[in-house]
Protein backbone atom coordinates (compact mmCIF):
# COMPACT_ATOMS: atom_id res chain seq x y z
CA UNK A 1 0.00 0.00 0.00
CA UNK A 2 2.90 2.38 -0.55
CA UNK A 3 1.00 4.23 -3.28
CA UNK A 4 -2.05 5.10 -1.17
CA UNK A 5 -1.90 8.74 -0.12
CA UNK A 6 1.47 9.25 -1.80
CA UNK A 7 2.17 11.35 -4.89
CA UNK A 8 3.25 8.76 -7.43
CA UNK A 9 4.69 9.64 -10.82
CA UNK A 10 2.39 8.55 -13.64
CA UNK A 11 4.15 5.74 -15.50
CA UNK A 12 3.10 6.84 -18.97
CA UNK A 13 2.98 10.57 -18.16
CA UNK A 14 6.19 11.65 -19.91
CA UNK A 15 5.04 9.98 -23.12
CA UNK A 16 1.75 11.83 -22.90
CA UNK A 17 3.22 15.31 -22.39
CA UNK A 18 5.83 14.86 -25.12
CA UNK A 19 3.42 13.39 -27.69
CA UNK A 20 5.40 10.15 -27.83
CA UNK A 21 2.76 7.75 -26.46
CA UNK A 22 1.90 5.39 -29.31
CA UNK A 23 -1.88 5.15 -29.63
CA UNK A 24 -3.31 2.60 -32.08
CA UNK A 25 -3.68 5.21 -34.83
CA UNK A 26 -0.02 6.20 -34.39
CA UNK A 27 1.54 2.89 -35.40
CA UNK A 28 3.25 3.38 -38.78
CA UNK A 29 2.60 0.21 -40.76
CA UNK A 30 3.96 0.01 -44.33
CA UNK A 31 1.54 -1.06 -47.05
CA UNK A 32 -1.50 -0.60 -44.84
CA UNK A 33 -5.00 -0.62 -46.30
CA UNK A 34 -7.86 1.53 -44.99
CA UNK A 35 -11.25 0.08 -44.23
CA UNK A 36 -14.66 1.78 -44.47
CA UNK A 37 -18.10 0.50 -43.54
CA UNK A 38 -21.40 0.26 -45.41
CA UNK A 39 -24.12 0.92 -42.83
CA UNK A 40 -27.88 0.77 -42.73
CA UNK A 41 -29.56 4.07 -43.61
CA UNK A 42 -32.82 2.79 -42.06
CA UNK A 43 -34.00 2.09 -38.51
CA UNK A 44 -35.51 -1.20 -39.62
CA UNK A 45 -35.55 -2.89 -43.04
CA UNK A 46 -35.18 -6.14 -44.91
CA UNK A 47 -32.08 -6.31 -47.12
CA UNK A 48 -33.47 -7.23 -50.53
CA UNK A 49 -30.21 -7.01 -52.52
CA UNK A 50 -26.53 -6.94 -51.66
CA UNK A 51 -24.06 -6.92 -54.56
CA UNK A 52 -20.41 -6.16 -53.78
CA UNK A 53 -19.05 -6.81 -57.29
CA UNK A 54 -19.21 -3.13 -58.35
CA UNK A 55 -17.13 -2.19 -55.28
CA UNK A 56 -14.41 -4.65 -56.26
CA UNK A 57 -14.18 -2.91 -59.64
CA UNK A 58 -13.32 0.44 -58.00
CA UNK A 59 -9.59 1.27 -58.46
CA UNK A 60 -7.67 0.69 -55.25
CA UNK A 61 -10.26 -1.58 -53.61
CA UNK A 62 -8.66 -4.85 -52.44
CA UNK A 63 -11.47 -6.71 -50.70
CA UNK A 64 -15.01 -6.49 -49.43
CA UNK A 65 -16.48 -8.62 -46.66
CA UNK A 66 -20.11 -9.37 -45.87
CA UNK A 67 -21.67 -11.80 -43.38
CA UNK A 68 -20.80 -14.63 -45.78
CA UNK A 69 -17.11 -14.08 -45.03
CA UNK A 70 -17.46 -14.48 -41.27
CA UNK A 71 -16.91 -18.07 -40.07
CA UNK A 72 -19.17 -17.50 -37.02
CA UNK A 73 -21.21 -14.38 -37.68
CA UNK A 74 -23.56 -14.42 -34.69
CA UNK A 75 -21.76 -14.41 -31.36
CA UNK A 76 -22.94 -13.43 -27.89
CA UNK A 77 -21.08 -11.19 -25.48
CA UNK A 78 -22.44 -12.98 -22.44
CA UNK A 79 -22.70 -16.58 -23.58
CA UNK A 80 -20.56 -17.51 -20.59
CA UNK A 81 -23.32 -16.15 -18.33
CA UNK A 82 -26.04 -18.07 -20.15
CA UNK A 83 -27.20 -15.23 -22.42
CA UNK A 84 -27.67 -16.72 -25.90
CA UNK A 85 -26.19 -15.03 -29.00
CA UNK A 86 -28.36 -12.74 -31.10
CA UNK A 87 -26.25 -10.13 -32.89
CA UNK A 88 -24.49 -10.60 -36.24
CA UNK A 89 -21.07 -9.04 -36.84
CA UNK A 90 -22.37 -8.05 -40.29
CA UNK A 91 -26.08 -7.87 -41.08
CA UNK A 92 -27.63 -10.91 -42.78
CA UNK A 93 -31.21 -10.64 -44.04
CA UNK A 94 -32.29 -7.53 -42.16
CA UNK A 95 -31.07 -4.36 -40.47
CA UNK A 96 -32.52 -3.34 -37.13
CA UNK A 97 -30.93 0.02 -36.40
CA UNK A 98 -29.75 3.02 -38.39
CA UNK A 99 -25.99 2.53 -38.66
CA UNK A 100 -25.92 -1.27 -38.41
CA UNK A 101 -22.89 -2.52 -40.39
CA UNK A 102 -23.58 -4.54 -43.55
CA UNK A 103 -20.27 -4.75 -45.44
CA UNK A 104 -16.70 -3.49 -45.06
CA UNK A 105 -14.33 -2.43 -47.84
CA UNK A 106 -10.51 -2.44 -47.64
CA UNK A 107 -8.62 -0.25 -50.13
CA UNK A 108 -5.29 1.43 -50.74
CA UNK A 109 -6.56 4.76 -49.42
CA UNK A 110 -9.44 6.13 -47.36
CA UNK A 111 -10.86 7.77 -50.50
CA UNK A 112 -10.81 4.51 -52.46
CA UNK A 113 -12.45 2.67 -49.55
CA UNK A 114 -15.23 5.28 -49.43
CA UNK A 115 -15.71 5.03 -53.19
CA UNK A 116 -15.92 1.24 -52.79
CA UNK A 117 -18.61 1.56 -50.11
CA UNK A 118 -20.59 3.93 -52.36
CA UNK A 119 -20.39 1.44 -55.25
CA UNK A 120 -21.91 -1.50 -53.36
CA UNK A 121 -25.33 -2.38 -54.77
CA UNK A 122 -27.76 -2.58 -51.86
CA UNK A 123 -31.51 -2.20 -51.57
CA UNK A 124 -33.93 -2.36 -48.70
CA UNK A 125 -37.57 -2.81 -47.96
CA UNK A 126 -38.37 -0.60 -45.01
CA UNK A 127 -40.24 -1.98 -42.03
CA UNK A 128 -42.01 -0.10 -39.23
CA UNK A 129 -39.60 0.81 -36.45
CA UNK A 130 -40.10 0.60 -32.70
CA UNK A 131 -38.40 3.60 -31.12
CA UNK A 132 -40.22 4.02 -27.78
CA UNK A 133 -39.95 1.37 -25.05
CA UNK A 134 -43.40 2.33 -23.75
CA UNK A 135 -45.01 1.00 -26.93
CA UNK A 136 -43.15 -2.33 -26.92
CA UNK A 137 -45.91 -4.27 -25.14
CA UNK A 138 -48.79 -3.12 -27.37
CA UNK A 139 -50.28 -5.90 -29.50
CA UNK A 140 -49.68 -4.02 -32.76
CA UNK A 141 -46.18 -2.73 -31.88
CA UNK A 142 -43.53 -3.22 -34.58
CA UNK A 143 -41.43 -6.30 -33.90
CA UNK A 144 -37.90 -5.16 -33.11
CA UNK A 145 -36.21 -8.51 -32.43
CA UNK A 146 -36.62 -12.15 -33.43
CA UNK A 147 -37.06 -13.06 -29.74
CA UNK A 148 -39.95 -10.58 -29.39
CA UNK A 149 -39.86 -7.06 -28.01
CA UNK A 150 -38.30 -7.99 -24.69
CA UNK A 151 -35.49 -10.30 -23.64
CA UNK A 152 -36.95 -13.70 -22.69
CA UNK A 153 -33.94 -15.65 -21.39
CA UNK A 154 -33.15 -14.51 -17.85
CA UNK A 155 -32.95 -18.15 -16.85
CA UNK A 156 -30.47 -19.04 -19.60
CA UNK A 157 -30.90 -20.09 -23.24
CA UNK A 158 -34.58 -20.67 -24.07
CA UNK A 159 -35.45 -20.38 -20.40
CA UNK A 160 -37.82 -17.95 -18.70
CA UNK A 161 -38.32 -15.75 -16.74
CA UNK A 162 -38.71 -12.98 -19.28
CA UNK A 163 -37.81 -10.26 -16.79
CA UNK A 164 -36.10 -9.60 -13.46
CA UNK A 165 -38.56 -9.77 -10.63
CA UNK A 166 -38.22 -9.02 -6.91
CA UNK A 167 -40.94 -9.61 -4.33
CA UNK A 168 -40.17 -8.85 -0.70
CA UNK A 169 -42.52 -8.53 2.25
CA UNK A 170 -46.22 -7.69 1.87
CA UNK A 171 -46.60 -4.88 -0.62
CA UNK A 172 -50.40 -4.64 -0.31
CA UNK A 173 -50.22 -4.21 3.45
CA UNK A 174 -47.64 -1.44 2.99
CA UNK A 175 -49.90 0.48 0.62
CA UNK A 176 -52.91 0.02 2.94
CA UNK A 177 -51.01 1.45 5.91
CA UNK A 178 -49.52 4.39 4.00
CA UNK A 179 -50.37 8.01 4.82
CA UNK A 180 -49.40 9.01 1.28
CA UNK A 181 -48.31 7.51 -2.03
CA UNK A 182 -45.47 9.36 -3.76
CA UNK A 183 -45.10 8.59 -7.44
CA UNK A 184 -42.48 9.45 -10.00
CA UNK A 185 -41.54 8.57 -13.57
CA UNK A 186 -37.86 8.92 -14.40
CA UNK A 187 -36.22 8.68 -17.80
CA UNK A 188 -32.42 8.95 -17.66
CA UNK A 189 -31.45 9.18 -21.32
CA UNK A 190 -28.79 7.69 -23.59
CA UNK A 191 -25.27 9.11 -23.29
CA UNK A 192 -22.43 8.61 -25.75
CA UNK A 193 -19.21 7.76 -23.87
CA UNK A 194 -17.30 10.01 -26.28
CA UNK A 195 -13.67 9.24 -25.67
CA UNK A 196 -11.56 11.77 -27.59
CA UNK A 197 -9.83 8.86 -29.38
CA UNK A 198 -12.39 7.22 -31.68
CA UNK A 199 -12.59 3.44 -32.13
CA UNK A 200 -9.58 2.36 -34.16
CA UNK A 201 -7.94 -0.97 -34.88
CA UNK A 202 -5.12 -2.20 -37.13
CA UNK A 203 -4.31 -5.80 -37.96
CA UNK A 204 -1.05 -7.11 -39.46
CA UNK A 205 -1.03 -10.65 -40.91
CA UNK A 206 2.30 -12.24 -39.99
CA UNK A 207 4.25 -14.68 -42.17
CA UNK A 208 3.82 -17.44 -39.55
CA UNK A 209 0.04 -17.29 -39.93
CA UNK A 210 -0.58 -15.30 -36.76
CA UNK A 211 -2.40 -11.99 -36.65
CA UNK A 212 -0.96 -9.01 -34.79
CA UNK A 213 -3.84 -6.79 -33.68
CA UNK A 214 -3.33 -3.22 -32.45
CA UNK A 215 -6.45 -2.53 -30.44
CA UNK A 216 -7.77 0.25 -28.22
CA UNK A 217 -10.06 -2.18 -26.38
CA UNK A 218 -10.69 -1.73 -22.67
CA UNK A 219 -10.89 -5.48 -22.14
CA UNK A 220 -8.10 -7.15 -24.04
CA UNK A 221 -8.84 -10.77 -23.12
CA UNK A 222 -12.55 -10.26 -23.68
CA UNK A 223 -11.85 -8.85 -27.16
CA UNK A 224 -9.39 -11.64 -27.97
CA UNK A 225 -12.14 -14.14 -27.21
CA UNK A 226 -14.57 -12.29 -29.48
CA UNK A 227 -12.06 -12.25 -32.37
CA UNK A 228 -11.16 -15.91 -31.92
CA UNK A 229 -14.88 -16.77 -31.78
CA UNK A 230 -15.87 -14.95 -34.97
CA UNK A 231 -12.82 -16.22 -36.88
CA UNK A 232 -13.01 -19.74 -35.50
CA UNK A 233 -9.31 -19.77 -34.62
CA UNK A 234 -7.52 -20.67 -31.37
CA UNK A 235 -6.29 -17.81 -29.18
CA UNK A 236 -2.66 -18.60 -29.99
CA UNK A 237 -3.19 -17.38 -33.56
CA UNK A 238 -3.78 -13.89 -32.15
CA UNK A 239 -1.23 -11.45 -30.78
CA UNK A 240 -2.81 -8.36 -29.24
CA UNK A 241 -0.92 -5.11 -28.75
CA UNK A 242 -3.23 -3.16 -26.49
CA UNK A 243 -3.41 -1.19 -23.29
CA UNK A 244 -2.97 2.34 -24.60
CA UNK A 245 -6.51 3.64 -24.65
CA UNK A 246 -7.37 7.24 -25.55
CA UNK A 247 -10.34 7.22 -23.21
CA UNK A 248 -13.00 4.52 -23.13
CA UNK A 249 -15.58 4.98 -20.36
CA UNK A 250 -17.20 1.67 -21.30
CA UNK A 251 -17.50 2.38 -25.02
CA UNK A 252 -14.32 0.53 -25.83
CA UNK A 253 -15.60 -2.76 -24.51
CA UNK A 254 -17.34 -2.91 -27.87
CA UNK A 255 -15.23 -5.34 -29.89
CA UNK A 256 -16.44 -4.86 -33.44
CA UNK A 257 -13.50 -3.30 -35.28
CA UNK A 258 -11.06 -6.05 -34.20
CA UNK A 259 -12.71 -9.09 -35.88
CA UNK A 260 -13.54 -7.01 -38.96
CA UNK A 261 -9.97 -5.85 -39.64
CA UNK A 262 -8.70 -9.34 -38.83
CA UNK A 263 -10.99 -10.84 -41.50
CA UNK A 264 -9.91 -8.21 -44.04
CA UNK A 265 -6.24 -8.79 -43.23
CA UNK A 266 -6.70 -12.51 -43.77
CA UNK A 267 -8.57 -11.94 -47.00
CA UNK A 268 -6.05 -9.46 -48.50
CA UNK A 269 -2.86 -10.73 -46.88
CA UNK A 270 -2.09 -7.09 -46.02
CA UNK A 271 -2.26 -4.90 -42.91
CA UNK A 272 -5.63 -3.18 -42.55
CA UNK A 273 -6.75 -0.26 -40.40
CA UNK A 274 -10.26 0.87 -39.52
CA UNK A 275 -10.78 4.18 -37.74
CA UNK A 276 -14.26 5.47 -36.99
CA UNK A 277 -15.21 9.03 -37.81
CA UNK A 278 -16.69 11.10 -35.03
CA UNK A 279 -20.05 10.77 -36.76
CA UNK A 280 -19.82 6.96 -36.64
CA UNK A 281 -18.74 7.22 -33.03
CA UNK A 282 -21.89 9.17 -32.14
CA UNK A 283 -24.41 7.40 -34.36
CA UNK A 284 -23.19 3.83 -34.64
CA UNK A 285 -21.35 2.81 -31.47
CA UNK A 286 -23.19 1.76 -28.35
CA UNK A 287 -24.25 4.33 -25.79
CA UNK A 288 -25.30 4.23 -22.19
CA UNK A 289 -28.88 2.96 -22.29
CA UNK A 290 -31.95 5.11 -21.94
CA UNK A 291 -34.23 3.89 -19.15
CA UNK A 292 -37.89 4.33 -18.29
CA UNK A 293 -38.50 3.89 -14.55
CA UNK A 294 -41.82 4.21 -12.72
CA UNK A 295 -41.96 4.30 -8.93
CA UNK A 296 -44.79 4.44 -6.39
CA UNK A 297 -43.71 4.64 -2.75
CA UNK A 298 -46.00 4.03 0.21
CA UNK A 299 -44.84 6.48 2.91
CA UNK A 300 -45.85 7.58 6.39
CA UNK A 301 -46.36 11.27 7.12
CA UNK A 302 -43.15 11.34 9.19
CA UNK A 303 -41.05 10.10 6.27
CA UNK A 304 -40.74 6.31 6.55
CA UNK A 305 -40.87 4.36 3.31
CA UNK A 306 -43.07 1.33 3.94
CA UNK A 307 -43.07 -0.10 0.45
CA UNK A 308 -41.98 0.47 -3.13
CA UNK A 309 -43.59 -0.61 -6.40
CA UNK A 310 -41.27 -0.18 -9.34
CA UNK A 311 -41.31 -0.93 -13.05
CA UNK A 312 -38.16 -0.59 -15.16
CA UNK A 313 -38.03 -0.66 -18.95
CA UNK A 314 -34.42 -0.73 -20.08
CA UNK A 315 -33.96 0.26 -23.73
CA UNK A 316 -31.42 -2.25 -25.04
CA UNK A 317 -31.61 -0.99 -28.61
CA UNK A 318 -31.63 -3.62 -31.32
CA UNK A 319 -29.63 -6.45 -29.66
CA UNK A 320 -28.94 -7.78 -26.18
CA UNK A 321 -25.18 -7.09 -25.77
CA UNK A 322 -24.67 -6.54 -21.99
CA UNK A 323 -28.20 -5.35 -21.26
CA UNK A 324 -29.46 -8.42 -19.31
CA UNK A 325 -26.47 -8.01 -17.02
CA UNK A 326 -27.23 -4.27 -16.69
CA UNK A 327 -30.82 -4.94 -15.61
CA UNK A 328 -29.74 -7.66 -13.17
CA UNK A 329 -27.31 -5.23 -11.50
CA UNK A 330 -30.02 -2.57 -11.58
CA UNK A 331 -32.44 -4.88 -9.74
CA UNK A 332 -30.04 -5.24 -6.79
CA UNK A 333 -29.99 -1.46 -6.33
CA UNK A 334 -33.67 -0.53 -6.48
CA UNK A 335 -33.77 0.54 -2.83
CA UNK A 336 -30.60 2.62 -3.18
CA UNK A 337 -28.87 3.01 0.17
CA UNK A 338 -32.11 2.70 2.11
CA UNK A 339 -33.96 -0.05 3.96
CA UNK A 340 -37.34 -0.62 2.32
CA UNK A 341 -39.26 -3.51 3.85
CA UNK A 342 -41.84 -4.27 1.13
CA UNK A 343 -40.86 -4.38 -2.53
CA UNK A 344 -42.57 -5.26 -5.78
CA UNK A 345 -40.22 -4.83 -8.76
CA UNK A 346 -40.36 -5.86 -12.42
CA UNK A 347 -37.51 -5.01 -14.79
CA UNK A 348 -37.53 -5.68 -18.52
CA UNK A 349 -34.81 -5.55 -21.18
CA UNK A 350 -36.80 -4.05 -24.06
CA UNK A 351 -35.62 -4.24 -27.66
CA UNK A 352 -36.12 -1.22 -29.94
CA UNK A 353 -34.76 -0.16 -33.33
CA UNK A 354 -32.20 2.10 -31.72
CA UNK A 355 -28.41 1.75 -31.59
CA UNK A 356 -27.65 -1.14 -29.21
CA UNK A 357 -26.68 0.07 -25.77
CA UNK A 358 -23.86 -1.18 -23.62
CA UNK A 359 -21.34 -0.41 -20.94
CA UNK A 360 -20.73 3.03 -19.55
CA UNK A 361 -19.39 3.76 -16.08
CA UNK A 362 -21.49 1.72 -13.67
CA UNK A 363 -24.23 1.00 -16.19
CA UNK A 364 -27.40 -0.34 -14.66
CA UNK A 365 -26.57 1.26 -11.32
CA UNK A 366 -26.10 4.92 -12.26
CA UNK A 367 -29.59 5.13 -13.77
CA UNK A 368 -31.24 3.72 -10.66
CA UNK A 369 -29.09 5.70 -8.22
CA UNK A 370 -30.01 8.98 -9.87
CA UNK A 371 -33.66 7.95 -9.98
CA UNK A 372 -33.84 6.94 -6.33
CA UNK A 373 -32.08 10.03 -5.02
CA UNK A 374 -34.46 12.19 -7.07
CA UNK A 375 -37.40 10.20 -5.68
CA UNK A 376 -36.09 10.66 -2.10
CA UNK A 377 -36.08 14.43 -2.58
CA UNK A 378 -39.58 14.22 -4.06
CA UNK A 379 -40.83 12.29 -1.01
CA UNK A 380 -39.38 14.99 1.26
CA UNK A 381 -40.97 17.80 -0.72
CA UNK A 382 -44.39 16.10 -0.92
CA UNK A 383 -44.37 15.50 2.85
CA UNK A 384 -42.83 18.90 3.67
CA UNK A 385 -39.86 17.28 5.44
CA UNK A 386 -36.13 17.90 5.35
CA UNK A 387 -34.58 15.83 2.51
CA UNK A 388 -31.50 14.93 4.59
CA UNK A 389 -33.63 13.75 7.48
CA UNK A 390 -35.85 11.59 5.26
CA UNK A 391 -32.70 10.00 3.87
CA UNK A 392 -31.06 9.45 7.26
CA UNK A 393 -34.21 7.96 8.78
CA UNK A 394 -34.43 5.32 6.04
CA UNK A 395 -30.67 4.91 5.52
CA UNK A 396 -29.32 1.34 5.61
CA UNK A 397 -27.71 0.31 8.87
CA UNK A 398 -25.60 -2.63 9.96
CA UNK A 399 -27.77 -5.75 9.86
CA UNK A 400 -30.35 -4.38 7.41
CA UNK A 401 -31.14 -6.42 4.31
CA UNK A 402 -31.22 -5.35 0.66
CA UNK A 403 -34.23 -6.03 -1.64
CA UNK A 404 -32.67 -9.40 -2.54
CA UNK A 405 -32.02 -10.32 1.10
CA UNK A 406 -28.30 -9.65 1.35
CA UNK A 407 -27.32 -8.71 4.91
CA UNK A 408 -25.33 -5.47 5.07
CA UNK A 409 -22.23 -5.73 7.25
CA UNK A 410 -20.60 -2.45 6.34
CA UNK A 411 -23.09 0.08 4.91
CA UNK A 412 -21.83 3.66 4.66
CA UNK A 413 -25.15 5.40 3.96
CA UNK A 414 -25.37 7.23 7.31
CA UNK A 415 -21.87 8.75 7.40
CA UNK A 416 -22.02 9.59 3.67
CA UNK A 417 -25.33 11.47 3.98
CA UNK A 418 -23.99 13.31 7.05
CA UNK A 419 -20.82 14.24 5.15
CA UNK A 420 -22.91 15.42 2.17
CA UNK A 421 -24.94 17.66 4.50
CA UNK A 422 -21.78 19.10 5.96
CA UNK A 423 -20.22 19.70 2.54
CA UNK A 424 -23.40 21.48 1.47
CA UNK A 425 -23.37 23.62 4.60
CA UNK A 426 -26.64 22.13 5.90
CA UNK A 427 -27.16 22.10 9.68
CA UNK A 428 -28.69 18.80 10.79
CA UNK A 429 -30.62 18.62 14.04
CA UNK A 430 -28.79 16.93 16.91
CA UNK A 431 -30.59 13.59 16.49
CA UNK A 432 -29.50 13.25 12.91
CA UNK A 433 -26.03 14.74 13.40
CA UNK A 434 -25.17 12.13 16.01
CA UNK A 435 -26.91 9.21 14.29
CA UNK A 436 -24.64 6.21 13.73
CA UNK A 437 -24.92 3.20 11.48
CA UNK A 438 -25.15 0.80 14.43
CA UNK A 439 -27.76 -1.97 14.20
CA UNK A 440 -31.33 -0.76 14.55
CA UNK A 441 -33.03 -0.43 17.93
CA UNK A 442 -35.57 1.81 19.63
CA UNK A 443 -37.33 4.35 17.40
CA UNK A 444 -35.22 3.27 14.45
CA UNK A 445 -36.61 -0.26 14.58
CA UNK A 446 -40.32 0.18 13.88
CA UNK A 447 -42.46 -2.95 13.71
CA UNK A 448 -42.38 -3.16 9.92
CA UNK A 449 -38.59 -3.48 9.90
CA UNK A 450 -38.43 -6.06 12.66
CA UNK A 451 -38.68 -9.11 10.42
CA UNK A 452 -36.15 -7.64 8.03
CA UNK A 453 -32.91 -7.82 9.94
CA UNK A 454 -30.29 -10.18 8.59
CA UNK A 455 -28.13 -12.56 10.56
CA UNK A 456 -24.82 -10.81 11.13
CA UNK A 457 -23.15 -13.91 12.47
CA UNK A 458 -24.01 -16.13 9.54
CA UNK A 459 -20.97 -17.10 7.55
CA UNK A 460 -20.85 -15.61 4.07
CA UNK A 461 -20.90 -18.42 1.58
Amino acid at each position, binding site marked *: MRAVGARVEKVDGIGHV*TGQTTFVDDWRIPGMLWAKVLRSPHDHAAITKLDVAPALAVPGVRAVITHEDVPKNVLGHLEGLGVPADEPLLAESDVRWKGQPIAVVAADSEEAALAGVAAIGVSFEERPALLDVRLAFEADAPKAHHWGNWFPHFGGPDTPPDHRKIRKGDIDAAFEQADAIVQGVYRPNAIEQMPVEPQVCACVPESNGRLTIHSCTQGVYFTMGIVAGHLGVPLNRLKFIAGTVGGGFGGKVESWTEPVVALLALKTGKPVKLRFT*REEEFLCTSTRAPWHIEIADAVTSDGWILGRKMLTLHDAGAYARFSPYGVTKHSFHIAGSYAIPNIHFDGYVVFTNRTPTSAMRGFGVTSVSWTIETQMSRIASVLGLDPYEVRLRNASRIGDTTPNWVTLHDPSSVPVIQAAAEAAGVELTADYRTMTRDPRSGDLLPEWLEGQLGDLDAKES
Partner: protein
Amino acid sequence: MKLNVNGVEHALESGALTPLLHVLREELGVTSPKAGCQSGGCGACTVLVDGEPRRSCLTPLGAVDGAEVTTIEGIGDAHDLHPVQEAFHTLHAAQCGFCTPGMIVATVALLKRLPQPGRREIERALSGHICRCTGYVKIVEAVEAAAGGSR
Protein backbone atom coordinates in the same frame (compact mmCIF):
# COMPACT_ATOMS: atom_id res chain seq x y z
CA MET B 1 4.31 22.66 -51.57
CA LYS B 2 6.65 23.24 -48.61
CA LEU B 3 6.48 23.28 -44.86
CA ASN B 4 9.01 23.85 -42.12
CA VAL B 5 8.04 21.38 -39.40
CA ASN B 6 9.80 21.74 -36.05
CA GLY B 7 12.74 23.43 -37.76
CA VAL B 8 13.13 20.96 -40.64
CA GLU B 9 12.23 21.91 -44.25
CA HIS B 10 10.04 19.47 -46.16
CA ALA B 11 8.96 19.41 -49.81
CA LEU B 12 5.58 17.70 -49.91
CA GLU B 13 3.67 15.51 -52.32
CA SER B 14 0.19 15.89 -50.82
CA GLY B 15 -2.31 17.98 -52.77
CA ALA B 16 -3.31 21.51 -51.79
CA LEU B 17 -6.65 20.42 -50.34
CA THR B 18 -5.17 17.71 -48.11
CA PRO B 19 -5.76 18.59 -44.45
CA LEU B 20 -2.57 19.60 -42.65
CA LEU B 21 -3.36 16.90 -40.06
CA HIS B 22 -3.20 14.21 -42.74
CA VAL B 23 0.02 15.64 -44.18
CA LEU B 24 1.71 15.63 -40.79
CA ARG B 25 0.53 12.18 -39.75
CA GLU B 26 0.50 10.24 -43.00
CA GLU B 27 3.12 11.90 -45.20
CA LEU B 28 5.61 13.03 -42.54
CA GLY B 29 4.88 10.51 -39.78
CA VAL B 30 4.50 13.22 -37.13
CA THR B 31 1.80 11.57 -35.01
CA SER B 32 1.42 13.86 -31.98
CA PRO B 33 -1.50 15.79 -33.50
CA LYS B 34 -4.47 13.43 -33.11
CA ALA B 35 -7.50 12.78 -35.31
CA GLY B 36 -10.13 13.17 -32.61
CA CYS B 37 -13.02 14.36 -34.75
CA GLN B 38 -11.56 15.64 -38.04
CA SER B 39 -14.23 18.29 -38.05
CA GLY B 40 -12.94 21.12 -35.91
CA GLY B 41 -14.73 20.15 -32.73
CA CYS B 42 -12.22 18.71 -30.27
CA GLY B 43 -8.84 20.47 -30.53
CA ALA B 44 -6.78 17.25 -30.41
CA CYS B 45 -5.19 18.06 -33.79
CA THR B 46 -4.01 21.55 -32.76
CA VAL B 47 -0.56 22.64 -33.97
CA LEU B 48 1.13 26.03 -34.15
CA VAL B 49 1.25 27.63 -37.59
CA ASP B 50 3.69 30.54 -37.50
CA GLY B 51 3.19 30.55 -33.74
CA GLU B 52 -0.62 30.58 -33.77
CA PRO B 53 -2.75 27.60 -32.68
CA ARG B 54 -4.63 26.06 -35.62
CA ARG B 55 -6.89 23.02 -36.00
CA SER B 56 -4.82 21.06 -38.48
CA CYS B 57 -7.82 18.90 -39.47
CA LEU B 58 -9.56 21.96 -40.96
CA THR B 59 -6.45 23.58 -42.46
CA PRO B 60 -5.82 22.70 -46.11
CA LEU B 61 -2.13 22.35 -46.96
CA GLY B 62 -2.46 24.98 -49.70
CA ALA B 63 -3.46 27.63 -47.16
CA VAL B 64 -0.25 27.23 -45.16
CA ASP B 65 2.28 26.63 -47.96
CA GLY B 66 5.72 27.74 -46.76
CA ALA B 67 4.64 28.18 -43.13
CA GLU B 68 6.47 27.18 -39.97
CA VAL B 69 4.61 24.42 -38.15
CA THR B 70 5.35 23.51 -34.55
CA THR B 71 4.01 20.34 -32.98
CA ILE B 72 4.69 19.18 -29.44
CA GLU B 73 7.83 17.40 -30.70
CA GLY B 74 9.23 20.87 -31.40
CA ILE B 75 8.45 22.13 -27.90
CA GLY B 76 10.40 19.78 -25.69
CA ASP B 77 11.28 16.12 -25.24
CA ALA B 78 11.66 13.68 -22.38
CA HIS B 79 15.22 14.89 -21.64
CA ASP B 80 14.37 18.56 -21.89
CA LEU B 81 10.79 19.20 -20.87
CA HIS B 82 9.25 22.60 -21.53
CA PRO B 83 7.83 24.11 -18.29
CA VAL B 84 4.30 23.54 -19.62
CA GLN B 85 5.04 19.85 -20.22
CA GLU B 86 6.63 19.61 -16.79
CA ALA B 87 3.56 21.16 -15.14
CA PHE B 88 1.10 18.91 -17.02
CA HIS B 89 3.14 15.88 -15.96
CA THR B 90 3.72 16.65 -12.29
CA LEU B 91 0.22 18.00 -11.68
CA HIS B 92 -1.52 15.04 -13.36
CA ALA B 93 -3.15 17.12 -16.07
CA ALA B 94 -2.83 14.32 -18.63
CA GLN B 95 -4.74 11.14 -17.98
CA CYS B 96 -5.13 9.12 -21.20
CA GLY B 97 -2.97 11.69 -22.98
CA PHE B 98 -4.95 11.86 -26.21
CA CYS B 99 -5.96 15.52 -25.86
CA THR B 100 -2.65 16.50 -24.28
CA PRO B 101 -0.46 17.49 -27.28
CA GLY B 102 -3.19 19.87 -28.47
CA MET B 103 -3.70 21.30 -24.98
CA ILE B 104 0.03 21.84 -24.49
CA VAL B 105 0.76 23.58 -27.81
CA ALA B 106 -2.24 25.87 -27.25
CA THR B 107 -0.95 26.65 -23.75
CA VAL B 108 2.55 27.41 -25.04
CA ALA B 109 1.05 29.89 -27.52
CA LEU B 110 -1.09 31.45 -24.78
CA LEU B 111 1.86 31.99 -22.43
CA LYS B 112 3.93 33.52 -25.21
CA ARG B 113 1.15 36.03 -25.89
CA LEU B 114 0.17 36.52 -22.24
CA PRO B 115 2.86 35.33 -19.81
CA GLN B 116 0.60 35.67 -16.75
CA PRO B 117 -2.91 34.86 -17.83
CA GLY B 118 -5.85 35.00 -15.45
CA ARG B 119 -8.23 32.09 -15.05
CA ARG B 120 -10.66 33.61 -17.57
CA GLU B 121 -7.96 33.90 -20.23
CA ILE B 122 -6.80 30.33 -19.64
CA GLU B 123 -10.35 29.06 -19.90
CA ARG B 124 -10.93 31.06 -23.07
CA ALA B 125 -7.68 29.86 -24.69
CA LEU B 126 -8.49 26.20 -23.97
CA SER B 127 -12.25 26.37 -24.39
CA GLY B 128 -12.17 24.58 -27.75
CA HIS B 129 -10.12 21.70 -26.36
CA ILE B 130 -12.15 18.74 -25.18
CA CYS B 131 -10.78 16.44 -22.50
CA ARG B 132 -12.98 13.56 -21.37
CA CYS B 133 -10.69 12.04 -18.74
CA THR B 134 -8.96 14.57 -16.59
CA GLY B 135 -11.62 17.14 -15.95
CA TYR B 136 -10.51 20.68 -16.60
CA VAL B 137 -9.51 21.67 -13.05
CA LYS B 138 -6.11 20.01 -13.11
CA ILE B 139 -5.43 21.30 -16.60
CA VAL B 140 -6.12 24.91 -15.60
CA GLU B 141 -3.98 24.41 -12.46
CA ALA B 142 -1.11 23.11 -14.60
CA VAL B 143 -1.32 26.13 -16.89
CA GLU B 144 -1.30 28.44 -13.86
CA ALA B 145 1.69 26.59 -12.41
CA ALA B 146 3.58 26.80 -15.70
CA ALA B 147 2.87 30.54 -15.87
CA GLY B 148 3.99 30.97 -12.25
CA GLY B 149 7.11 28.95 -12.90
CA SER B 150 8.12 31.07 -15.86
CA ARG B 151 7.62 34.32 -13.95
